[in-house]
């Protein structure tokens, strides 16, 4: 700024003199061209103020008006012209609307790439301003993605559809993909290393078909990448850990429509990794040493590898493990990475002693620690490493600081040969809590009165509460989240902290800048072809015109729409997000999912399958059997555009023929807590030992979620069950009663209370169910009875690793007329999910002649389980005790452990056992071995059904050969999911 110019020059701007001539003239009219503007009249007036009729014209105001109009985001171009009129000046704002992206489709491309990838590649974001330059770039991006997938001959044309009223534009990218190119023979250069030639490299890449038959494969992006990865693995296998594999280019041979990869290989030296002083498996070593993943050897990676090995050994109990490394040449083109390990003695973390804690209980602190003293099974040497200890100390300090202990200091000390026991460690953690700091005064500035009450309700740092940075951050998150969800997208938060006059007290000041509040102008929907628009509208909540613009309302509605299960994609965005307008459109763009889906499968069941043959009745408790099965399913989603799903599932095996047709209306009547299901079932099965049943059922069920934990189901079912006379393996005297056709009309209701932390593998919580039903001739039933089945299960953590789980089940059927309850409606139980002392459905009363189970009218089961980790984090063990039985009547329920007479089955069977659980994402895989202490004895029948019918025929002396049997003491169960 040191330059001084003395200006005496009289240069003039000659042009635009005429524009300046209007300066100061009275404005006689203000018009807009076109007259229909994207902003409403009041907004227009506000944006162009202070320009108004009757006022003098100032060019600075015109400039400001153009800027404000443009900043609304709704204009692409604005010019203002002036003309003399009525002794003043008339202004006309000539505007061009900005368009915003709505639909984007890419057509004409065989997968891969799929539609989603191409739409993403186009980078035309929903609701964002559109420009022709962007579209050109989008076409280029799509072409690039196509080229990566071998479509080098592709051409892209574009088509646009504008909806002026909403300023939206749909873009179609129409692709003429041409033929997909095939790979050509790769050109490979560079130093390939020993024993690896070009042929091996080409073979490894798998760009050629099997054994080279049929030549090279078609190019896809995934194949190119996978091929390069496979070449890298080839080099790793040959110890070339530093090999560089680069794809320089892909040459396109247009005449042959081939792509020739040009690959440069720099094998580098071979790198051998040697361990001295300890053995670690090769697989584990690959996990521990980053040089395998990074494909390079440098000091940092070697150090990281050393740290990983050290921590691994410490985790194995070698707490003093020392690891060093050396990198040296071993002849030409070979390097050796040598890790020298001194494991030291194996230790055990015998004690973890925490002192000085007053504010928190020791349990609370231990929950946050990695260090674990030795346990019997899972951590036989405990869990300790210097790194773990450091992390634990930090975690404890963080815990205290988050609760106002700003001056907390945690120290640790490790003592070896603790209490004279060799190689036993004790870790002493000393906590000096220091004083707790509190908030003395909190001042909130800038929040509107209508928002203040909510804000005050969510504050962690209110007056008198512990003071901590953590609480301030939580307050910031809560407050900003509130504002963002209530139409204040520009809200900001600032916290200032000052020591108060009193000791250990802080004054806090929260300054909030709310910014402009934004509201919903309307919701615009696109992409629906068959779906009823009302179905969508009913799921858009808190997005009515005039509602505050809320991100959570938008995403909640999006979730509800996804939950319908009929959309492959639901995008939501604000139109013109950057534009300075108070009212904004919310956009939803849909991609409807495929409507038809087919499933099919072939499988087999190997299990104890009883009563499979009418020729032999020797094994009423079942015997090992094999049952092949075929299944087929078809479903049609979004039926009639209503979001409903209709599906048919069929299964055929030598044990079962089953067809199930279901009509599901989720979020019934727009209520996301209700769903309605119609079901039709045909089932011809032999899933229990005693008979084959044919079941035809039609039912309607309304499911209702009452609260987060509670739900209910209401059902009306009408079914006809018949028992195959030829399959009945019980005393012939019972046949007429049991084999007659049963028609049932039944209403039932189930209440479910689920407060478990994880439904697939609960660690704490409660699970209660109660199911009651009434079959009555009022509903078309031949027989009349009631049924109630209830279960109460609770889960308790014992210490850090153990879980105690218990369950009590009770069931009762009571006939309300002279007619007996039909056999298929009786209570059958026993097996993996009820009582593991029995095979599947083998509990309870049995036929006195053949010994097959006949079901009961009451059941009582009590199950106790102790669940604990066994190996690592995924394999757990269970000790269990199952007690109970199915009883012939309510009055017969008995806790006595002895069976008494062989014809009496009303006693409590006890079983204890051991199980293994392997955790998977869908729940644990379960294997249980149970020992039944007092399994039932019963009379069986030796012979065939034919013989049974003859010997037990009326008027003949009973000459049936009896066979005294007992259920096996040992039962083995394999299934998915916890027992309860």
């Amino acid at each position: 700024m040191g330059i001084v110019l003395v200006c005496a020059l009289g240069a003039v701007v000659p042009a635009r003199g005429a524009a300046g001539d209007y300066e100061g003239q009275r404005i006689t009219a203000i018009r807009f061209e076109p007259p229909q503007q994207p902003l409403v009249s009041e907004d227009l007036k506000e944006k162009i103020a202070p320009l108004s009729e009757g006022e003098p014209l100032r060019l600075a105001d015109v400039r400001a008006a153009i800027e404000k109009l443009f900043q609304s985001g709704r204009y692409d171009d604005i010019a203002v012209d002036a003309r003399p009129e009525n002794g003043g000046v008339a202004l006309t704002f000539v505007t061009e609307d900005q368009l915003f992206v709505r639909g984007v489709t890419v057509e004409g491309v065989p997968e891969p790439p799929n539609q989603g990838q191409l739409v993403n590649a186009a980078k035309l974001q929903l609701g964002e301003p559109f420009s022709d330059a962007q579209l050109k770039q989008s076409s280029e991006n799509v072409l690039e993605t196509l080229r990566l997938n071998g479509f080098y001959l592709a051409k892209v044309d574009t088509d646009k559809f504008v909806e002026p009223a909403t300023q939206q534009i749909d873009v179609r990218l129409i692709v003429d993909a041409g033929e997909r190119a095939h790979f050509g023979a790769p050109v490979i250069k560079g130093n390939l290393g020993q024993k690896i030639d070009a042929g091996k490299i080409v073979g490894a890449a798998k760009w050629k078909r099997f054994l080279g038959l049929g030549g090279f494969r078609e190019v896809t992006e995934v194949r190119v990448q996978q091929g390069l990865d496979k070449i890298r693995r080839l080099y790793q296998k040959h110890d070339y850990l530093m090999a560089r594999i680069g794809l320089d280019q892909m040459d396109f041979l247009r005449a042959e429509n081939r792509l020739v990869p040009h690959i440069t290989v720099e094998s580098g030296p071979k790198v051998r990794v040697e361990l001295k002083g300890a053995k670690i498996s090769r697989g584990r070593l690959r996990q521990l040493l980053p040089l395998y993943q990074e494909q390079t050897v440098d000091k940092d990676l070697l150090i990281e590898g050393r740290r990983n090995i050290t921590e691994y050994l410490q985790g194995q109990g070698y707490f003093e493990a020392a690891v060093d490394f050396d990198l040296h040449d071993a002849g030409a083109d070979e390097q050796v990475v040598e890790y020298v390990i001194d494991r030291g003695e194996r230790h055990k973390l015998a004690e973890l002693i925490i002192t000085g804690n007053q504010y928190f209980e020791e349990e609370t602190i231990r929950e946050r620690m990695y260090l674990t003293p030795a346990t019997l099974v899972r951590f036989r040497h405990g869990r300790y490493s210097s790194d773990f200890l450091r992390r634990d100390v930090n975690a404890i300090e963080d815990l205290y600081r988050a609760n106002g202990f700003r001056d907390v200091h945690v120290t640790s000390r490790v003592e070896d040969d603790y209490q004279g026991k060799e190689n036993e460690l004790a870790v002493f953690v000393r906590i000096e809590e220091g004083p707790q700091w509190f908030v003395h005064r909190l001042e909130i500035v800038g929040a509107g009165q209508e928002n203040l009450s909510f804000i005050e309700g969510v504050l962690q740092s209110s007056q008198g509460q512990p003071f901590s940075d953590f609480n301030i951050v939580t307050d910031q998150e809560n407050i900003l989240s509130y504002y963002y969800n209530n139409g204040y997208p520009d809200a900001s938060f600032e916290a200032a902290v000052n020591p108060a006059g009193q000791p250990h007290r802080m004054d806090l000041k929260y300054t909030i800048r709310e910014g402009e509040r934004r509201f919903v102008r309307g919701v615009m929907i696109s992409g629906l072809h068959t779906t009823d628009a009302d179905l969508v509208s009913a799921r858009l909540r808190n997005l009515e015109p005039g509602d505050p613009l809320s991100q959570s309302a938008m995403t909640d509605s999006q979730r509800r729409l996804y939950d319908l299960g009929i959309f492959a994609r639901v995008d939501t965005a604000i139109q013109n997000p950057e534009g300075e307008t108070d009212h904004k459109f919310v956009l939803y763009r849909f991609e409807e999912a495929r409507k038809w889906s087919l499933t099919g499968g072939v499988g087999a069941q190997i299990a104890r399958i009883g009563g499979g043959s009418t020729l032999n009745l020797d094994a009423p408790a079942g015997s090992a059997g094999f049952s092949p099965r075929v299944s087929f399913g078809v479903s049609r989603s979004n039926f009639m555009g209503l979001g409903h799903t209709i599906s048919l599932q069929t299964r055929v095996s030598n044990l079962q023929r089953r067809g199930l047709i279901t009509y599901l209306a989720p979020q019934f009547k727009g209520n996301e807590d209700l769903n309605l299901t119609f079901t039709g079932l045909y089932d011809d099965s032999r899933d229990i030992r005693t008979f084959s049943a044919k079941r035809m059922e039609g039912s309607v069920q309304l499911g209702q979620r009452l609260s987060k934990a509670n739900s209910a189901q209401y059902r009306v079912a009408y079914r006809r069950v018949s028992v195959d006379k030829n399959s009945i393996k019980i005393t012939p005297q019972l046949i007429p009663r049991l084999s007659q056709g049963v028609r049932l009309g039944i209403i039932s209701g189930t209440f479910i209370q689920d407060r478990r932390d994880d439904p697939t593998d609960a660690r704490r919580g409660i699970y209660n169910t109660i199911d009651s039903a009434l079959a009555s001739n009022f509903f078309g039933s031949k027989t009349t009875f009631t049924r109630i089945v209830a279960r109460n299960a609770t889960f308790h953590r014992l210490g850090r690793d153990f879980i105690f789980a218990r369950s009590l089940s009770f069931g009762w059927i009571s006939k309300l007329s002279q007619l007996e309850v039909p056999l298929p409606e009786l209570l059958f139980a026993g097996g993996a999910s009820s009582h593991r002392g029995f095979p599947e459905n083998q509990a309870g009363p049995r036929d006195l002649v053949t010994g097959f189970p006949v079901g009961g009218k009451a059941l009582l089961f009590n199950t106790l389980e102790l669940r604990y980790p066994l190996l690592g984090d995924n394999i757990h063990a269970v000790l269990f005790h199952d007690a109970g039985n199915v009883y012939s009547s309510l009055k017969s329920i008995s806790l006595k452990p002895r069976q008494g007479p062989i014809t009496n089955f009303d006693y409590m069977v006890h079983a204890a056992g051991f199980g293994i659980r392997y955790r998977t994402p869908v729940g644990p895989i379960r294997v249980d071995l149970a020992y039944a202490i007092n399994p039932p004895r019963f009379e069986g029948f030796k012979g065939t059904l034919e013989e049974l019918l003859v010997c037990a025929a009326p008027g003949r002396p009973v000459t049936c050969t009896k066979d005294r049997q007992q259920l096996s003491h040992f039962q083995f169960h394999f299934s998915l999911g916890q027992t309860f």
Partner: protein
Amino acid sequence: MHCAAHSRGTGKAVFSLCLLAAASGAEIIDRIAVTVGNQVITETEILREIRLNALLDCTAPNLSPDYKREVAEKLVDQALIRRELDASYAGVTVNPADPVVDTMLRQQFPEQAAYRKALQQQRLSDREVRQRLAWQLTVLRFLEARFRPGVQVPEAEMRDYYEKNIAAKAARNGGETLPAFEDVRVEIENILASRRTNQALDRWIGQTRTQTRVKFREEAFQ
């Protein structure tokens, strides 16, 4: 169908037609020339800038399309600076009424009459000139606050500058006394630091421009 209800491909043509129709017998007094994100630079702003340049440089205003474009490019850079300034460095803004602006103005135009005449000739107001000078100062302060703290001048570079400039100049001028390095160290450091600060600004502007939608309307530069 009203003027804007067409697909984008014809939108520009329609806009021009609307403009022609609206402007028959009238003239365009202002229009968007460049957009920088959601900020606007209008044609009259570019012309005002040209007149301010002419007034402060004591030259005739250059209204060639190329120069208009050059000025517009500078205004784009300023718009980016202004955005950054508003977001994080509002404190460095200089008020046009600040005495330091008076001082600058007096240095530029010692004689009030000449200043008034120049203003009249360029159709500018005193307020506009003051705003421009205040903005220049604001940018300087912004540079100091935003980029200067991150600038370090290595000792070797200072010595190199000393040898190649001050020592060489003294040698060329024969008998001129060569100041000791330590005596001119601060001065050298300031020169080199401002060079580096300017380079940092250029880098930042380049980077920011790639992240901002900048669109020039060719009609405004014809």
